[in-house]
């Protein structure tokens, strides 16, 4: 028998080191790396920590948009690159709260949670870190006990939810879909059902399409009712194929990474699709590109940039809502072959009407 126990111990020790090393979030790769070294001048007074959600850096969508805001702030000298740090949630998001707490413990002046799922965790820990500003993109932390959270808004004055009027942006792409296809059926693929967030996209999309064609039929399907619904392209493709089969000429998705399934289905069906959050035309494969009519742009970068700016000039406080009027939303124009200039003209008209308050877009499905 001899020394097998010793060897086993060594093996276990080795494995745990490997596990620890690998499991550790590869932290500041985003902030570090490709920066151009010494920025001319930057504000040394503040430090910024950002916790990405599932998908992490490189998702070409939500998280990358947030990172773009941070990089812009660094470039403009609002914060020094060496004073920033980022981390990424694991594939189920189970370490979100730990990641945020680690940043708060490290004493960053501003801690940003990229995604609504950070709300409960930040709501709970915020009173323990009165000197830290917390900003949650799409957050609902200040909703307090009414939303089943621990603390009410008064107890967490250092927390701000930065949200978007996604229904306003979705209105534009809904109108674009109806204008483009001149058909009677279009589709909507949602990610997680039941939080009210993705339902805003649906409501705006339906309203926009109906503004062009009051009789239009909008097929609606959701992938699931937990956050993994945003990371399931196989189901996304199956549901999209189903809607294309049922006559949808164009499908708009608000399903995060599951949207990759929509684009695959669009190629198979040779029909159009609409992207979300960032300009997905730019990141699609060559066979998908011509089929991506437009994307609903959500300026997460603007929200992040604003939070950093506010922290720098001490004006941070209170939640903000970004609508079309605040440049928080837009539609993408990278596929002019499909989204022709006359469609764009009409969309810009709608945009102005929404900004002027002539059109009020509903934020919940009828």
């Amino acid at each position, binding site marked *: *028998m001899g020394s*097998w126990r010793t*060897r*086993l111990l060594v*093996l*276990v020790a080795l*494995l745990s080191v*490997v*596990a620890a*090393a*690998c*499991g*550790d979030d*590869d932290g500041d*790769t985003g902030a570090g790396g490709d920066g151009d070294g010494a920025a001319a001048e930057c504000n040394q007074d503040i430090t910024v920590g950002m916790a990405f959600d*599932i*998908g*992490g*850096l*490189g*998702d070409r969508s939500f998280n990358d948009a947030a990172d773009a805001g941070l990089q812009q702030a660094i470039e403009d000298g609002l914060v020094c690159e060496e004073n920033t740090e980022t981390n*990424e949630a*694991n*594939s*189920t998001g189970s370490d979100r709260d730990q990641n945020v707490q680690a940043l708060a413990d490290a004493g960053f002046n501003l801690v940003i949670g990229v995604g609504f799922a950070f709300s409960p965790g930040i709501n709970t820990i915020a009173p323990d870190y009165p000197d830290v500003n917390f900003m949650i993109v799409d957050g609902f932390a200040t909703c307090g006990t009414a939303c089943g959270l621990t603390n009410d808004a008064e107890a967490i004055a250092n927390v701000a939810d930065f949200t978007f009027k996604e229904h306003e942006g979705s209105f534009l792409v809904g109108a674009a879909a109806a204008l483009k296809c001149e058909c009677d059926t279009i589709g909507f693929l949602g990610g997680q059902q039941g939080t009210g967030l993705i339902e805003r996209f649906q409501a705006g999309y339906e309203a926009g399409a109906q503004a062009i064609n009051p009789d239009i039929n909008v097929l609606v*399907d959701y992938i699931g009712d937990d956050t*993994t619904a945003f*990371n*399931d*392209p*196989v*189901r996304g493709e*199956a*549901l999209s*194929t*189903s809607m294309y*089969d*049922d006559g949808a000429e164009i499908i708009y998705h608000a399903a995060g*990474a599951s949207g*990759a*399934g929509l*684009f*695959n289905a669009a190629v*198979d069906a040779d029909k159009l699709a609409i992207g979300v959050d960032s300009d997905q035309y730019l*990141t*699609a*494969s*060559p*066979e*998908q590109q011509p089929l991506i009519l437009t994307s609903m742009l959500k300026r997460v970068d603007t929200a992040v940039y604003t939070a950093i700016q506010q922290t720098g000039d001490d004006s941070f406080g209170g939640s903000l809502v970004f609508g079309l009027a605040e440049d928080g939303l837009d539609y993408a124009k990278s596929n002019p072959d499909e989204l022709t200039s006359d469609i764009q003209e009409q969309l810009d008209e709608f945009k102005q009407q929404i900004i002027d308050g002539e059109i009020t877009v509903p934020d919940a499905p009828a």
Partner: protein
Amino acid sequence: MPFTDIAVALQISFTYFTVIYLTGLGGLFSERSGIVNIGLEGLMIVGTVSGAWGARYFTDTLDLGQPWGPILGLVAGAAFGAAFAGVHAVATITFRVDHIVSGVVLNLVAVGLARFLSQAFFGQSTQSDPGGPHLTPLAIPGLSSLPGGLDRAFENLSPVVIIAALMVFPVWYALNRLRWGLRLRACGENPEAARSLGVNVSTYRYQGVLLSGAFAGMSGGYLAADVIGNWREGQTLGLGFIALAALILSNWNPVRLLFFAWLFGFAVAIPLRQGLTDFWLIRDVPEQFIRMIPYIVTIVAIAGFVGRVRPPAAAGRAYEGAGGT
């Protein structure tokens, strides 16, 4: 009757079938040799990242094109899966670590290892670029021209689906007709007896575990490269555990596994078709319950209500007598 809906549900079920069956076959080799392998999910995860990389590397960088690029991508997934399974083999066979503990470690390490490999392969930690190369779908004469919408079931059929289904023949033959298979099974049932007849138990168990890594890795590679087109963290969605359930239910039999892998795949596919969920009885059952079917069936089966589920007698038991160290 919603024939088109059934056909499309079948089409979706073939995708899940392929993933579950290949992974299940992996588990089968390992467990028939006497090594419990609950690390299938972890082996698949490593297969997804390396398979997606391999498909892109061999197709674009080495410019091998179709079909060799994507095929070598699958081979890369299998190779990395086997290498990672080697950890399980060394731990359980050479060092006689508890099989469950080692399997759990495999699943936990895989998540970090995948991020590490992703950084090395793609320069980003949680995904690769979408739209990677995949095998050209097959059109099978006859099947792809079935009437009444049934042709949809075989539309865009990946060759891997056929290969996976055909795999039942060599696997069954190897296990039941070859001397190698008899010895492998003997190691799983009664290693002491096998050794007394001159069989090197450790060698066979190593082969079983490495094969399990190769099959699970290939399955992961198929999922990432062929089905989705890029690697994404978390894309295995627990299918490795479903494969484990199918394996148990099949009584460690490759022919029965064929059926259960498809059945579980079909259960996943039903809620994805509006036409089917509006249909007759299914309409009244909440979607969540339909998705539970595979697990409920498995628990009922393990509890002994349906047939007899009997794992290889020596599976999970440390074997001290090999003298291989």
